[in-house]
């Protein structure tokens, strides 16, 4: 097999993610499809997860804005603070392969740093974390996103998943769980 690094074309990328989104809708798996109709290069899919953790410190500056409670809105003692993790699968034109990006943010929208993300994903003590997750510009949004380093993706798809009918599903099932995103086993039917 000479296919050690199969380049995925843009068209096949779109076909694969449309398949994923269609099945996701059947499974209520909450993948979202993004893309502007007038710009076919803007297509990617995303999925959000939520995670609760310890509350963050409060900005002292805000205290003098606060008002006394004179209404009966119950304070439900929501001590847990929420973290949102959003995973994106987009197409990287340079590597000609799909990339997995992720961003994590607090409830106010402030992003976690690379180091904080490692911590939440449990990578802090892992020696090869640097090779796995780095910061790159999102190919569609052109903003920095934490990105699973794409240099091995082409290899992986070429050597391991070249027979897959949907290599993105095969690759995601192998890679995404490392970053806290489980792929439902039902997607396997797209690969054969």
């Amino acid at each position: 097999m000479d296919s050690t690094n199969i380049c995925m074309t843009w068209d096949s990328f779109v076909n694969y993610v449309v398949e994923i989104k269609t099945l996701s809708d059947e499974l209520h798996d909450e993948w979202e499809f993004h893309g502007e109709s007038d710009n076919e290069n803007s297509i990617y899919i995303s999925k959000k997860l939520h995670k609760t953790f310890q509350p963050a410190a409060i900005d002292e500056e805000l205290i003098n804005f606060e008002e006394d409670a004179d209404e009966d809105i119950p304070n439900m003692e929501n001590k847990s603070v929420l973290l949102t993790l959003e995973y994106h699968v987009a197409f990287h034109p340079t590597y000609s392969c799909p990339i997995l990006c992720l961003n994590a943010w607090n409830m106010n929208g402030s992003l976690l740093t690379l180091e904080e993300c490692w911590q939440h994903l449990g990578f802090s003590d892992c020696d090869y974390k640097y090779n796995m997750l780095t910061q790159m510009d999102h190919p569609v949004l052109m903003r920095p996103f934490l990105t699973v380093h794409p240099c091995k993706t082409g290899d992986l798809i070429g050597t391991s998943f070249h027979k897959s009918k949907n290599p993105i599903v095969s690759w995601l099932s192998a890679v995404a769980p490392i970053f806290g995103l489980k792929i439902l086993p039902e997607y396997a039917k797209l690969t054969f």
Partner: protein
Amino acid sequence: MEKTKLLEYFPFSSSVNPSFWHKLTEIKLDIDKLNENSRKIWGYYSNLTFNACKIPLFEVDSTSFNTECNSQNNYLFAHGILLNKNTIEQFKDCNKTELIQNESRRVWNYIASGEALNNPSLLNFFFILSFADLKKYHYYYWFCFPAPPRISVNLLEIVSINSIFEKDMINRLSNNYQGLDQQQKSFFVINNSTTNLEILPIKSIRTLEVTSNLQEYYFAFSDSSTSSEHPGWFARNYIALLLYNCPFLSEKTINLLAFRLSRDGNEINCSSSIVFKIILPKINIQDINPENVWLGWERNERGKFGPRLCNMKTSIDPKCLAETSVDLNLKLMKWQLLPEINLEKIKHAKCLLLGSGTLGCSVARTLLGWGVRNITFVDNALVSFSNPVRQSLFIYEDCVKNRSKAEAAAERLKNIFPGVNSKGYNFSIPMPGHPVGESLLPQTKESVQILTDLISEHDIIFLLMDSRESRWLPTLLGTYFKKIVINAALGFDTYLIMRHGFRSENEEDIVVPETSMERVKSIPGHKLGCYFCNDVTAPGNSLKDRTLDQQCTVTRPGISAIAGALAVELAVSLLQHPNGAKAPAHYKIGNQELGEETHEECILGIVPHSIRGFLTTYTHVLPATEKYKHCVACSDIILDEYQKHGYDFLLRVFDSCKYLEDLTGLSEIHKEITDLEVWDLEDTTDGDEESE
């Protein structure tokens, strides 16, 4: 009998996607500018229990600003208003009571006009009061979900849907719900008078009569709450709608169905829904209109009624993004290859570049690559038309405008990387054997003062000038102030990069090198020579002698980039060496290559005393030479003299370089040497430490 409880509602927790702030910034800068008009936005919530998330989330993101709502999956949408204020004072001082009254009138009108019966999603209403500080990228915001006050609902019982309907009924209900129009999903009615459960649109409540059998009806709503005791917040508006349209429901017991979805294998069903059996209160409908202040301001993270703040500087401010990316790039190198490297030491090293020509430009660029933040240029020349093609920081415009090289270089560095603190000083460095006339005395004194201050304030001094004499004063001062001094000089196809020896006055400074290797010797850092140590003439006559760096040097164009880069790499290696400038230098005797057997002296490898490159053969040699006790620039005699007489001493040297030779005893030596050979870098067999 048990005392009846009042129904309480679980408020939303707002969750802002960073893309919302990105979009708001874009809109504020490009479209709204100073316009403070309110803007229609969308908010999203879900009645599907997300992977064990117990918090009723209310989300906004960049699509909140779209004209058409395009929520996907199991998200329900809410109609919202963004009230973005122009100043922090307006944000703080605006009348919150008036605000909520104004906004709650919208909801009230939807109820009163009957619009909400046709499109019940209108009851899902929120607004955000905000202020975007776009200088700091700080976003102050406060969510509000207006709902009528004083509706005391007695809670009788909470029942699981599973104990009311059969499993196949529940499945059918789940399926039918998925087929509902998005607008109708938030509030609807289920009727079980027939054998089939029937989902009716909310407007069907118009057909209810006093005589209707209320136990056959389930007033359902897509519930954001996951609490087993409390329905979600929008149920409040639902009850107001019911009471407004069906006043006869007062004091009646009704089924409030909190319609909740959960995943069961590959299916989504509504079996986690619960029914609140409640008694609706008897109210005067005018008691809940917006003239009575509605509720709904969200509590902040501390449980207080107050706004929240999001600091997005590091993820939106392009200057921050540039800094983070530059640092991250270096961190990746650290993480992947050099875990021991001290990047902070490099980042905070203050670098003084004497000379802003080919070498200066190349050195500055390489320093930027290493993440150095403080770079100062000194040069006395203006950018000339021949410069830009070889000197990478200049452009044609700089020549046309006759700009000072030091200042143009400093400014260009900031254009390349705004995070750098770069400065340019335009003055001449006084030189030995260049007598200072009466008229130039004040200027010379000032130049000496500025140079002295600059050298004492910086950590690494790069000597990158195009004349030999101008290196004398900075060599002396660099040694005197115990700085790292890196010297780079170019010939036509040769170059020299050298670190000057470290001046030591006490034993602690002396690092005795350990070397047990055969045919490798080493010189401790405090015994290493300077650029002038190998000379037996004082500088001042470079136009007569052949030297590497005489004025108008003609060099192969690639040399400056190579030499500049090597100068920085040597400086960085020295910074990473545990002994810094005191690091000893190893050199070989015999034919072996240095670096093969030597132990790594710092994490980046060896730290040679000098690097001489020859482009004709593409080779380097790494000689090390000892400090010369008669050196005209770094010897103790000179340093002592400078310490004692300071500027007066310097002035005498500027007047005559013969004075230097007399002082150091070189004049005596000259008498003994009949045939004076000037050390020349192109003569590679010179120097007893090398043996090629």
